[in-house]
């Protein structure tokens, strides 16, 4: 980037000074932004650009234990891709990752919206309390959150089993939540949604307070019920916020790894594979780094497709500033 003609650069401050400056000085100012960017750009190229390039190369290589010792892969063309595309487990995992992302994102957005609306209805004290609670949850590190949830659903002394039994919702004594993948995933989704609600709620609440009360009150006088006034006034006004929240949530939930990995004690069964986990297991447990890279690259490709909407929105915001 820095090699492009610096003459094209127009420093913003130029209009404030009317007399022409010497050429050398103008050139120096034109070069300044490139000089400032260079160190960060170089580091990003080294720590992100190179690994990304290497990931692409690895996905076309056979890279097992032998190659690991020699630090050199063996080129095998598209064989890795042929293998994963013919692997029924791979397609299962792709579909499961998509379904999982959909469940997490929709639950997060719906519940986050409901709590944000609740925040506009409660009194100042409860609002403060609720906001403080949300912030504590938001601040909780993921690894810590996973440990807490693991403890709450512990089969022997977990508070979840006791409460559900006490509420006569069935006999949950010594119930192992992870024996059945459906209930296991229910725990994992709850844990992720719980951790994600605060960001969504607090952002939406900030947006809701910007929606003029005159508008909703006028709608109420015109006979609109709360649902109509939400759908026809609030929702369109908050659409830009929703676009960002939904895209960010998709991006985050699509690449979930830690929650599943830690809650399954570092050895999930294939029922608990997401794409990130599958790629990890192929690489670091089975030492098929080439295959793992191919899976990871498919994941990156899907992610970049999804992120396109988000990036466009962010660039638009960046331009508006």
């Amino acid at each position, binding site marked *: 980037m820095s090699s492009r003609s610096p003459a094209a650069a127009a420093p*913003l401050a130029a209009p404030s000074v009317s007399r022409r400056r010497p050429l050398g000085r103008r050139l120096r100012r*034109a070069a300044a932004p490139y000089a400032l960017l260079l*160190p960060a750009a170089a580091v*990003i190229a080294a720590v992100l650009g190179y690994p990304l390039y290497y990931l692409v190369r690895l996905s076309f290589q056979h890279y097992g234990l032998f190659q690991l010792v020699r630090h050199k892969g063996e080129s095998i063309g598209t064989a890795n891709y042929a293998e994963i595309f013919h692997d029924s487990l791979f397609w299962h995992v792709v579909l499961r990752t998509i379904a999982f992302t959909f469940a997490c994102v929709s639950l997060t957005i719906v519940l986050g919206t409901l*709590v944000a609306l609740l925040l506009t209805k409660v009194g100042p004290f409860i609002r403060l309390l609720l906001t403080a609670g949300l912030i504590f949850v938001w601040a909780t*590190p993921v690894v810590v959150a996973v*440990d807490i949830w693991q403890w709450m659903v512990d089969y022997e002394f977990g508070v979840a089993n006791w409460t559900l039994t006490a509420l006569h919702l069935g006999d949950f004594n010594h119930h192992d939540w992870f024996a059945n993948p459906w209930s296991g995933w229910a725990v994992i989704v709850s844990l992720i949604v719980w951790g994600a609600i605060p960001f969504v709620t607090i952002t939406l609440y900030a947006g809701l307070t910007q929606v003029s009360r005159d508008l909703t009150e006028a709608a109420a006088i015109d006979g609109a019920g709360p649902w109509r006034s939400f759908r026809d006034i609030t929702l369109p006004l908050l659409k830009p916020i929703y676009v960002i929240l939904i895209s960010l949530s998709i991006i985050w939930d699509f690449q979930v790894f830690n929650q599943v990995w830690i809650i399954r004690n570092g050895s999930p069964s294939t029922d608990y594979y997401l794409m990130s986990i599958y790629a990890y297991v192929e690489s670091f447990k089975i030492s098929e*780094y080439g295959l793992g890279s191919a899976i990871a690259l498919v994941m990156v490709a899907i992610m970049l497709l999804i992120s396109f909407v988000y990036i466009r929105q962010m660039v638009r915001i960046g331009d508006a500033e």
Partner: protein
Amino acid sequence: MSSPLAGAPLAGVPARARRRRGGRRGRLGWNALGLAVFALIIFPVYWMIATAFKRGSDIFADTPVWFPIHPTLSNFTDAIHRPHFWADVKNSLIIVGCVVALSLVLAFLAALALAKFRFYGRKAFIVLIIGVQMIPLNALIIPIYLVLAKANQVDKLSGVIITYLTFVLPFTVWTLRGFMIGVPRELEEAAQVDGSTRFGAFVRVLLPLIGPGLVATSIFAFIQAWNEFIMAYVLLHSPEKQTLTVWLASFTTNRGTAWGPLMAGATLTALPVVIFFVAIQRKIAFGLTAGAVRG
């Protein structure tokens, strides 16, 4: 919210009065619901802290003991006396300190260019900065591990520090740029008219104004690096070289977890993050553009 009675059209008064009365009872209902939601949301955090302070017999009771009636610190002493706790705290601090310092310096210069200059390629760089944050780290861990293995940087803190720059640096550039844009140009220009150079104007005017932004950004970066798990988990093998999150995850190896000390350890791990987070949360909540802070 105080309903603005003043200025209400006359015909509207009865309706309003009715709504207010209904509103009072309604408010009570909403408040009760709000309290219930609060209890539900905060419960896991409460349960961690409560368990951390409970005696063993209260933790492993057939009926849950809802409140630590016999509070004890023994879980905490047990946790911090476990092997490698202090070494891992030290490692976490070294890694986080280096990552924050490095990215802050690099990001500061880059953000300055992005926020205060218009130049060819600026937009492309912004797209790049946002785009690279979308690349899943779990995907990059494979090539990063192999490259670091070749360079003999596996099981070394320096390798982890380099690795952490992959996610902390782009994020820091983006956030700092947001804070710098907030500084009005007029202030800088005024200083320049007063005869100082661009650099002089920058040091005397811009730097003090973005001070709070710098602090907030370093705290964001701190939290991200402190919470990171998978990179450290893959790259650091020796127990005395791991970070606190890896130490915490290794608590739960198999059945029969020591839940008391684990919850105490979890509380200690979360504590610095929570303190910092609460201190700067206003900046996070309203800086939508800086929204990428979620562990």
